[in-house]
């Protein structure tokens, strides 16, 4: 989780990723951020997030992203 938080903070230092629950729904993260985050996640966790997984429910919070990563690693 710490590694993910580091990536998120690197992408958007101004966002409170610990508490935000609607990063996509509220338009806090834009497509430029999402792309950066996904490519960084792919590299850091050795997974391949595909376009079909770019859904709000997977990216609305740091927790949701972490769950997606864990599911993909299993």
């Amino acid at each position, binding site marked *: 989780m710490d590694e993910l938080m580091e990536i998120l903070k*690197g*992408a958007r230092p101004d966002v409170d990723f610990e508490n935000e629950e609607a990063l996509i729904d509220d*338009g806090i993260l*834009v*497509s*430029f*951020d999402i*792309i*950066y985050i*996904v*490519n960084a996640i*792919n*590299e850091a966790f050795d997974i391949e*997030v*595909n*376009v*079909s997984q*770019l859904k709000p429910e997977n990216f609305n919070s740091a927790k949701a992203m972490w769950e997606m990563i864990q599911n993909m690693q299993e």
Partner: protein
Amino acid sequence: MVYSFSFLLFVTVLFFAYYFIFRNHQWIVLLIGSLAFYLYTDLRFSVFLVVTTVMTFFGAIKLEQLADFQKSSIKENKEKWTKEEKKAFKATVSKKKRLLLTLIAIVAFGMLMVFKCKKFLPFSWLILPLGMSFYTFQSIGYLIDVYRGDVKSERNFLHYALFVSYFPQIIQGPINRFDKLHHQFFERHDFDFAQIRSGLWLFLWGLFKKLVIADRLALFVNMVTEHTDAPAGSIVVTAIFLFNIELYADFSGGIDMVRGISEIFGITLAENFKRPFFATTIGEYWHRWHISLSNWIRDYVFYPIALSKRYASFSSKLSKRNTHFGKTVPAGMVSVFTFLLIGLWHEFSIAYIAYGLWHGFVMASAQIFEPFFSFLNRCFSLNRESYAMKLFGRARTWIIISIGEMFTITGSFSGFLRLVYQIFHNFNWYRIVTDIEMYSLTYKDFFVVGIGVIIWYVVSVRQEEGMQIREHIAAQPWLFRYLLTAGVIMITLIFGVYGSSYNAADFIYGGF
């Protein structure tokens, strides 16, 4: 036929058949209605609709069969095949799938491009087949969804034909997604007075925007921009300002009418607008304007490019030197490309290429130079969340949009240059007062438009605050509801723009 008396008659007949005669076969009523509507409106070019439907229907089935074959073969040979053999087999099947998808997309977009490029071809007299831009994107979107395994392919041709040809959406979109729309056709829709009334209100509201605001402003805007007598720059600026309102009223009004009619049949279509002129940045604007097109481009063009290995490696190399540039420069480049496609979706012309590039460059620059803008904000102690800054952001977005519209408003790049020349060499601000009535509209017309826009603005502000307007009206006493409905009908009938020389059924986006 679109929104004429015969159209209303057609919807009424369909309505009775749908709810009272063929209640167990409602989707068939919609399919027959949709095909009848299309054949009646655009008989000559219905062949393109048929080719696209047939091609994507069978293409999707084949794609799914290939995916199933891949899965079952790997399962069967789990023990027999080595890791390399599995990988090689997967690559062969994936290549076949990719080839099939590419071939179908090339044919479908190729047919569309012939019409979009007609200016450069010997048959410039061709008229774009009704809804071609919309049904091509919608059916290719479905094909990609099946290719990705996000949806199951439809095996009933008639079911699929309804998804592609559904008559309200064929006029000017929105571009619907298979997983959101398709299942609705096959659910039972009982007669629900509240829902039908709500659909009628939405239709009426769209009609008000179209006839009272858009069609009235169109008279002024068209006359100014087509005027060869060089109107003053101040008049040109006014026309561009009003064109933004006209375009939004025309397109969103048309979409409200489309969605309203669809709701009468219990089918909810995708939202296409979320009050775009409340956007404080150009990025936010594209999340609120023509949403179904920008989401399509994002999901089927932007994301696939930006998640490719080549992109990741370029971004990663840049990030090692500078994280911010690694994040924004490659994405900015893809953004310029995708906006170029949005421009070309409208029309293959220099004017629309310039329109797309303009939006792409502004979007990319906003992200790339974001640290500089933040620095300026800090220097001047500006709070982005303050009302004044939001107002500034909205005005800035409006100006950016207006510059983009200037490329296309006259239909040619030379027309754009003519407008720029007038603004910078012949502004003459006082001629707003002296000449304003020379271009089709009187002060009374501007007054009517002004009142219409104020009503629209107040409604939009309440929507921004989260109010569900139609639910709110439905909760009011019946007398208020009927007076309000009658009032909007009366205003539209009295103040709507009609006339033999002006076809109210022409929608700007119907032409794309």
